[in-house]
């Protein structure tokens, strides 16, 4: 009995409810008495863009010639009120990630990669570093509840301001940066004691609702003389209502971050159990914008689990103007790379599994403040890898758009999509493949 493999032996049955991961977490909780904190995003399987397919052109639609006929990827963000909207050459932007959570080299690499392909990158909870500003031709400055490092000089240096109400990994929660990563430089930028476990507030300190937010946005516009676009970022939950309120509050751009979106650190229970899938959030946001007559006037950026050009194209087809990537960008830099397998194992993890960003021991030199580990990431080479990846995403999205007969990524539409299963059909509001049935909507066969 003992010589047989217990996992393949007939008669041994693992509980679906109490599987090995569940049991391990119960044991961990019993031993430590504290919730599990980790980085990355949701690891559970949820309905996602893989559950959607494009209907390429044939008789009833006219495709465009690949490589010969143009398919525009340029997008202008912030056309509603800003004197200087942002023009990006690809609709794939880099999401907000802080210096503190990431090393200075990683932040620089993100800026380099984004700039190489003409798109924007975004600061995070902890302020703007000179390296990041210097290497980012288009930099979005996040305005967060903590206001760490917030100052009017950096505000005026930004190409756009993103008022963060929440993020997909933890809607309703604030940031977290454990003491291991609060080095002298990080502490000074955040006006915190070194080594403290930093818990950012989950609500803004000087406004409490959408009416207040409208005044806050006016303040930011006044301080910046109405030059730059103002984004509002929300974690995907009650997206229909949140988007309507954000438009009413005066946003130029709305960022909706689905539950697959990543984080540097938060409670696992938060990551896996709060928010809705990215795919489910987009139709809600688009409906809200359309009902207000603001679709394409207030631009929509979508993030959370975007991995390839198909995901980009599907977001655009559902009505987004652009997307943002975070986790995928870190992987492009070198996060979870097999070359560090031995070191991941020493940390009790493995390449492809590593998510303890909060510990600051990242062998790839990305989610760390350790100077020796940080040196492992060459910002020039890593930035170029990111640029390559962004180019691939863009070309893949163009390939699909041309196949659907579209000469602009933003001409993709829900009519180009079908769903593989009922859940995806209901969430994305597109027909189940081979039918005209959209669950929750009348008619169909």
């Amino acid at each position, binding site marked *: 009995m003992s010589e047989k493999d217990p996992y393949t032996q007939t008669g041994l049955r693992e509980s679906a409810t109490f599987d090995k991961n569940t049991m391990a977490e119960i044991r961990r909780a019993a031993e*430590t*008495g*504290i919730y599990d904190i980790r980085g990355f995003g949701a690891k559970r399987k949820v309905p996602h863009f893989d559950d959607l397919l494009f209907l390429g052109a044939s008789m009833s639609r006219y495709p465009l010639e690949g490589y010969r006929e143009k398919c525009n990827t340029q997008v202008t963000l912030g056309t509603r009120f800003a004197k200087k909207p942002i023009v990006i050459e690809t609709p794939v932007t880099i999401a907000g990630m802080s210096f503190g959570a990431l090393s200075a080299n990683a932040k620089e690499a993100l800026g380099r990669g984004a700039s190489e392909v003409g798109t924007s990158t975004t600061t995070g909870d902890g302020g703007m570093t000179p390296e990041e500003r210097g290497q980012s031709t288009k930099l979005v400055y996040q305005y967060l509840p*903590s*206001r760490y490092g*917030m*100052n*009017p000089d950096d*505000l005026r240096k930004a190409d756009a301001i993103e008022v963060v109400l929440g993020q997909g990994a933890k809607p309703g929660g604030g940031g977290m940066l*454990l*003491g291991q990563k609060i080095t002298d430089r990080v502490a000074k930028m*955040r*006006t*915190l*004691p070194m*080594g*403290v*476990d930093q*818990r950012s*507030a989950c609500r803004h*300190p*000087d*406004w409490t609702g959408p009416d*207040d937010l409208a*005044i*806050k946005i*006016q*303040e930011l516009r*006044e*301080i*910046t*003389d*109405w030059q730059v676009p103002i984004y509002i970022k929300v974690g995907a939950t009650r997206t229909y209502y949140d988007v309507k309120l954000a438009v009413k509050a005066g946003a130029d751009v709305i960022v909706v971050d689905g539950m697959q979106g990543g984080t540097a650190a938060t409670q696992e229970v938060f990551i896996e159990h709060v928010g809705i899938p990215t795919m489910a959030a987009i139709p809600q946001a688009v409906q809200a914008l359309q009902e207000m007559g603001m679709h394409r006037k207030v631009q929509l950026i979508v993030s959370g689990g975007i991995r390839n050009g198909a995901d980009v194209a599907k977001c655009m087809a559902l009505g987004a103007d652009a997307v943002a990537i975070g986790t995928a960008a870190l992987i492009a830099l070198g996060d979870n790379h097999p070359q560090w397998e031995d070191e991941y194992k020493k940390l009790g993890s493995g390449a492809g599994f590593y998510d303890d960003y909060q510990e600051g021991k990242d062998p790839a030199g990305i989610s760390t403040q350790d100077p020796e580990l940080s040196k492992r990431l060459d910002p020039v080479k890593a930035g170029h890898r990111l640029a390559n990846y962004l180019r691939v995403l863009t070309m893949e999205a163009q390939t699909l758009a041309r196949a659907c007969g579209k000469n602009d990524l933003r001409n993709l539409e829900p009519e180009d999509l079908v769903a593989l299963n009922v859940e995806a059909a209901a969430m994305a509001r597109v027909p189940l493949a081979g039918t005209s049935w959209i669950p929750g909507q009348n008619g169909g066969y």
Partner: protein
Amino acid sequence: MKTLDLATTSLREINQALHDQAKECTEREWKITGAKGDHNIACGLDAALSVDIEGHAGYYCAGMNKKAHVVIHGNAGQGVAENMMSGTVRVKGQASQSAGATAHGGLLVIEGDAGARCGISMKGVEIVVGGSVGHMSCFMGQAGALVVCGDAGDALGDSLYETKIFVKGSVSSLGADCIEKEMRQEHLDYLADLLNRAGIDEDPASFKRYGSARQLYNFKVDNVSAY
């Protein structure tokens, strides 16, 4: 002195005129009249100007102020001098909630009372309140000093980092990890100087000092009830 009237000049024009002084200062003394609760007056200043606001100010008056000396000859709405970097802001009347929120530097003087969350997440500003402050004042205060010449509401200094708090009157309750601390000579000297700079005539010896117990700086299972 240059006078601009909110009744006849738009807020945008007024703020732009004040911002233009950062590039080339042509007039140091400004008066803004006709304020009737208008929001965002004189926010984002970046020059050593003297700005007098006649009337009541709405939200975020003098927000993110740098270098300027702003006096509100009336009451101030939510978030007066929020995220101030330097300079001084004086409210002759009362101030609403979140006064001086997240401010990094400078001096905020409120001659009357301040509402809830006065000095929330403050990061280095000095705030002197002639009257009392509402609940949750100095919540997550990181640096700087809050002086209250009247009373403080519930949960003063909750989750405090390194802000110094001085209260003359009663404290309804202290927030998590905020404790009364010994008032040593160095604190009396600092408080005397700060009160003097604020133009508030009070005896430093009549105040009590509060600060962080620093027990919640790192996660500990034993502190679970405080989280």
